[in-house]
């Protein structure tokens, strides 16, 4: 999920030998003709690094993304909702697992990637640094955040790197219920008691702008997508996807009878697009820098789980080692 906002430029270029240039030319023509790149194929080092970074950030986002919604599993208001939410949060964990596995085909070890997340060196989608104070936030996340994520992810199913593309196909299939369950929660609240309607409206107010930020900086400020586009990792610009999201979502909000928190929002009859107000990129950058409302809590929760699970992982490894020793002793 959520990879679009995260693609950052790679700092340096490799020095291209004559050989390297020929290989790279061949690589580019294969990619241009929509052939998939597989793990053992030759690929430019920058392509590999860009992918490892994007896929692992994507994986981290899934894992951290379990937390804000996981916060409501024990308090879900009905048993049906509890089952749906458990399955949904579990799916996000599964997505993380698929994506880490895809990154590992590029030579990155999951252990190291997780270490980078826990040390704060790696990024994950900023959206999960916002809190879920009410049940309506669970609805808003499914509706808006998963909705935005799906919009980002569908093009990734055609990404040039085979393992990533295949992971995304699986993920997109699984995502399809996430947005619906979120919308259903919002719809139930919107048709519910005055308190429930207020809850729904406040959640929309909280999640609307962060959801728009999920698509990443505007195209004018996002100069570093050229490589990703050429490599067929990225197929639409941030602004294109953001506009599509707004066009899809505003009518849904209207259907719910909720007000999108943007006084400048209006339908441009000529183009058929909704025009929306300016995004507060200062806030986006602050959250990205670690100063969002929940950055510290999210990382602390991941670290806590990792640390308190260490003895369990050690035990499993020790047991497997003993088993191996027993097997070889028996064979000897």
């Amino acid at each position, binding site marked *: 999920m959520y990879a679009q906002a995260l693609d950052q430029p790679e700092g340096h270029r490799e020095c291209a030998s004559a050989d390297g240039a020929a290989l790279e030319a061949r690589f580019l023509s294969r990619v241009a003709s929509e052939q998939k790149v597989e793990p053992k194929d030759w690929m430019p080092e920058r392509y590999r690094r860009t992918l490892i970074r994007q896929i692992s950030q994507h994986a981290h986002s899934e*894992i951290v993304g379990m937390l804000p919604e996981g916060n409501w599993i*024990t308090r879900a208001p009905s048993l049906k909702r509890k*089952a749906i939410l458990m399955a949904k949060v579990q799916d996000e964990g599964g997505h993380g697992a698929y994506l880490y596995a895809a990154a590992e085909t590029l030579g990155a070890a999951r252990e190291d990637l997780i270490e980078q997340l826990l040390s704060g060196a790696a990024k994950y989608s900023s959206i999960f640094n916002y809190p879920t104070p009410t*049940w309506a936030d669970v609805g808003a996340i499914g509706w808006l955040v998963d909705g935005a994520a799906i919009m980002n992810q569908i093009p990734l199913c055609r990404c040039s790197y085979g393992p990533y593309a295949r992971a995304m196909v699986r993920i997109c299939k699984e995502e399809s219920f996430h947005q619906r369950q979120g919308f259903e929660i919002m719809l139930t609240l919107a048709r*519910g008691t005055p308190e429930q309607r207020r809850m729904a409206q406040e959640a929309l107010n909280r999640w609307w702008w962060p959801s728009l930020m999920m698509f990443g900086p505007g195209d004018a400020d996002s100069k570093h997508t050229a490589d990703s586009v050429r490599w067929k990792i990225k197929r639409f610009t941030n602004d294109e996807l953001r506009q599509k999201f707004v066009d899809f979502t505003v009518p849904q909000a209207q259907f719910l009878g909720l007000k999108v928190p943007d006084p400048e929002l209006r339908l441009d009859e000529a183009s058929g697009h909704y025009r929306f107000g300016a995004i507060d990129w200062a806030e986006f950058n602050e959250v990205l820098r670690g100063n969002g409302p929940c950055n510290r809590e999210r990382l602390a929760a991941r670290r806590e789980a990792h640390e*308190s*699970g260490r003895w369990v992982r050690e035990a499993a490894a*020790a047991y497997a080692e003993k088993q191996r020793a027993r097997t070889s002793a028996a064979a000897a």
Partner: protein
Amino acid sequence: MSEALPAQAQMTAGGAIGASSLAPDADRAKYVLRLADTSLIVAQQLGAWIGQAPALEEDLGLANIALDLLGQGRLLLAYAGELEGRGRDEDALAFLREPSEFVNVSLAEQPNGDFADTVMRQLLLDAWQIELFEALERSRDERLGQIAAKAVKETRYHLRYSGGWVVRLGDGTAESHERTQQALQRLWPYTAELFDADPLEEALAAAGIGPHPAALAAGWRARLQEVLAEATLILPPPASFRWYGKRGEHNEHLGHLLAEMQILQRTYPGAKW
């Protein structure tokens, strides 16, 4: 342990033994509610692990078990509500009862603790639920038999999971062995209740609705011992004090668990979610 009690297997494969009519609905409602609450409370507890497990794959594994148990709880609650005949659905029963009205076995409500506590609680319950559901498959109550037939398959996998982990932890490092043995010791006193029959269970066993609890002890112990032997863990001595969650006698943790679980339904009475 209740080995002193005779293993009275009241039910046969055909369910022919017992009274000619099913036990009174009220009795069956109470009995089904016990089964429901046990599955529900464990599901609620396992749900709290999702996102906090020792490894990503365990988040998924525990979530799968939680979902199975929640599914069992819902089917059983719905049925209990029907038998009770007071118009209470699964949510009314789950969210609007007091702690003292919950009749899960005490083992189910023991806190998650660390991973060893959780997988040990699961092992002790799984081994029991397999025996229980296998017996209930032959219940003269057809609906209960169908629910049990579904649940027993799920539970066999749960035992595979919990047993696998108890073995790895028990026979892992010195630290994991110690933690797992401690967990067994802590949870052991709550296992006696599983096999101690009360009048309700006696009556339903006689009617061919449910097994006599004592009849499940031998199978449970055999399953357990198989795992514990491989895990190099020792069975604790019988406990002197006995808890009876199934009669609504709970210790302190359940109140907190329910306060958390029920908060929205309690705060917004009558709202639909």
